[in-house]
């Protein structure tokens, strides 16, 4: 399938947006402007941007504690996104959710989740509801390699395959579960291998290569949308930073971090587009300027927003 220049530039822009949003979040967090803690996906942007580029507004996304990228790529409004992470009243969740629980029903961001593997079975239900109504929407459930060892992974993949649900299980494998390397918590080297045990297709791609991610995601989304059932899509990525912002990563060999940073999905895609004359001189700068203006605006909005209202403490527990 040939892509238009605009589609390719939009994917590049999406990755740049995620990168700059998270860099800003890390900076604001370090300065003490954001409460709690922050998990960034810097270096992993190709997965969010690549997968979400093939989704429509009616499609649903469930994400994780490291979920800013997925929400941003799915089109969440940056102002209220930022206000939520700031814990402010006009954040998407009235400042109750914060970084790990951002949700925006309008664009199908069902929610980030602080429980590892918590979103996997929920994806079954959003997909089933779509199937029940005869809609053609799909659900993408992002999760990590660590979550693939949770019981919910097993239950969800078995049920999704059994019922041919329109789901894409997208494992963003950065090879670290918090502070533990993958070789210490699973025997197989690829999460996608596990798909065979459920009778669903499993694919593993280089998650730093957005072209590969897009192609694999397009196939999986198309399969789901056309009634062909779920796919386990594993995207192998490299975590540039620690588990959380401020994690000194002393448990990781310095060369490992250095090596990770040589895999830059944004730089490599820009090079590909440059070589193909899709990206012309000045284009990337324009994207950067545009993204910076959006982020500046969102941060200003969040910072000027009222703090969460104590009167709201007791609301929304029940109808």
């Amino acid at each position, binding site marked *: 399938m040939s892509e238009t220049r605009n589609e390719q530039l939009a994917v590049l822009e999406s990755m740049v947006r995620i990168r700059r949003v998270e860099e800003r979040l890390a900076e604001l967090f370090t300065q003490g402007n954001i409460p709690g803690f922050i998990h960034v996906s810097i270096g992993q942007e190709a997965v969010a941007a690549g997968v979400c580029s093939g989704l429509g507004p009616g499609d649903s996304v469930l994400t994780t504690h490291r979920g800013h990228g997925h929400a941003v790529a799915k089109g969440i409004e940056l102002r209220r996104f930022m206000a939520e992470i700031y814990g402010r009243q006009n954040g998407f969740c009235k400042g109750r959710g914060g970084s790990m629980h951002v949700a925006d029903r309008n664009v199908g961001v069902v929610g980030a989740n602080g429980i590892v593997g918590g979103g996997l*079975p929920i994806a079954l*239900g959003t997909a089933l509801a779509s199937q029940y109504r005869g809609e053609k929407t799909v659900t993408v459930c992002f999760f990590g390699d660590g979550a693939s060892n949770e019981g919910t992974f097993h239950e969800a993949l078995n049920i999704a395959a059994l019922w041919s649900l329109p789901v894409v299980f997208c494992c963003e494998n950065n090879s670290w579960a918090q502070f533990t390397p993958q070789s210490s918590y699973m025997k197989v080297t690829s999460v996608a291998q596990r798909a065979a045990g459920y009778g669903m297709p499993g694919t593993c791609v280089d998650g730093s290569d957005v072209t590969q991610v897009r192609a694999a995601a397009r196939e999986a989304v198309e399969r789901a949308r056309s009634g062909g059932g779920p796919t386990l899509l594993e995207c192998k990525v490299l975590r540039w930073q620690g588990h959380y912002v401020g994690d000194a990563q002393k448990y990781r060999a310095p060369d490992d971090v250095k090596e990770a940073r040589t895999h830059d999905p944004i730089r490599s895609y820009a090079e590909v587009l440059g070589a193909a004359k899709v990206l012309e001189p000045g284009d990337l700068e324009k994207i950067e300027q545009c993204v910076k203006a959006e982020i500046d605006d969102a941060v200003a909005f969040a910072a000027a927003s009222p703090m969460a209202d104590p009167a709201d403490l007791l609301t929304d527990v029940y109808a």
Partner: protein
Amino acid sequence: MPTLNIIQAVNDALRQEMRRDPTVVILGEDVGKFGGVFRASQGLQEEFGKDRVIDTPLAESGVIGTAVGMALYGLRPVPEIQFADFIFPAMDQIVSEVAKFRYRSGGQYTCPMVIRTPYGGGIRGGHYHSQSPEAHFIHTAGLKVVVPSNPHDAKGLLTSAIRDPDPVLFFEPKRMYRAARGEVPDGEVVVPIGKARVTREGRHVTLIAWGAMWHEADQAAREAADLGIECEVLDLRTLQPLDIDAIVESVQKTGRAVVVHEAPRTCGFGAEISALIQERCFLHLEAPVARVTGFDTPFPYTLESEYLPRAPRILKAVREVMAF
């Protein structure tokens, strides 16, 4: 008016609500073709099809998680957990997702569903077919908890629960499934959530119970009457939200209260009720609030008659509060 048992009443409510509302979908282990291990959904798959009465794998977390996603997108799932003892594998989904979605999404998403589950001892079920885990869910903000004691309330409360905008844990007293029989109207029966019922009036002691234990409390009240002690019996019916006004009204009249439940004593719901009574009725109390409960042990197999608070143990507590 037909006479039904609790299972038939549950089945009746499910059927009527599914006819009324096409978004109501049942799912669970053996609920479809088999009709449920206790037959609560018998005949429903034949009438409504496999898309609305869904047989699932043995995967409680998967079942409840599926229900969460369905509820977020406009369906009214009624998942069945075959025995309340099997609810623990789904605990994360219930506590972290079902209960909190409305709050944590700032009201963007809601999670209306009814988790039906048979609970309680007295059927020689042993450790894991006998427990009464209601307190865990009452303790979790965002959930409602309902426990009917009789067929009429089972139908009326289940109807209300399915129509409720919030998630409801619906505990069915399995020992009374066929033992409790009563008249239940054919058509729509609605019993509001959050309202207790005074099933027997009395001026000496208030007996507070729910589900299967209501029957024991009622029996104890009859026996107390022979001794000249007039018990007022309250069937709470809903534990969350609790009808505290009904409790206060009764205890202010009697000055004495005995709370009965099957679950272990420590941090059982009786502890909360006792605290609420002393907060609100302190100057009316003639005796400390008594609790007649299960013991702080795992649920026993052969000794379940000793474990369960049967009428003689309740009567003993009634006499003690009278003698205080």
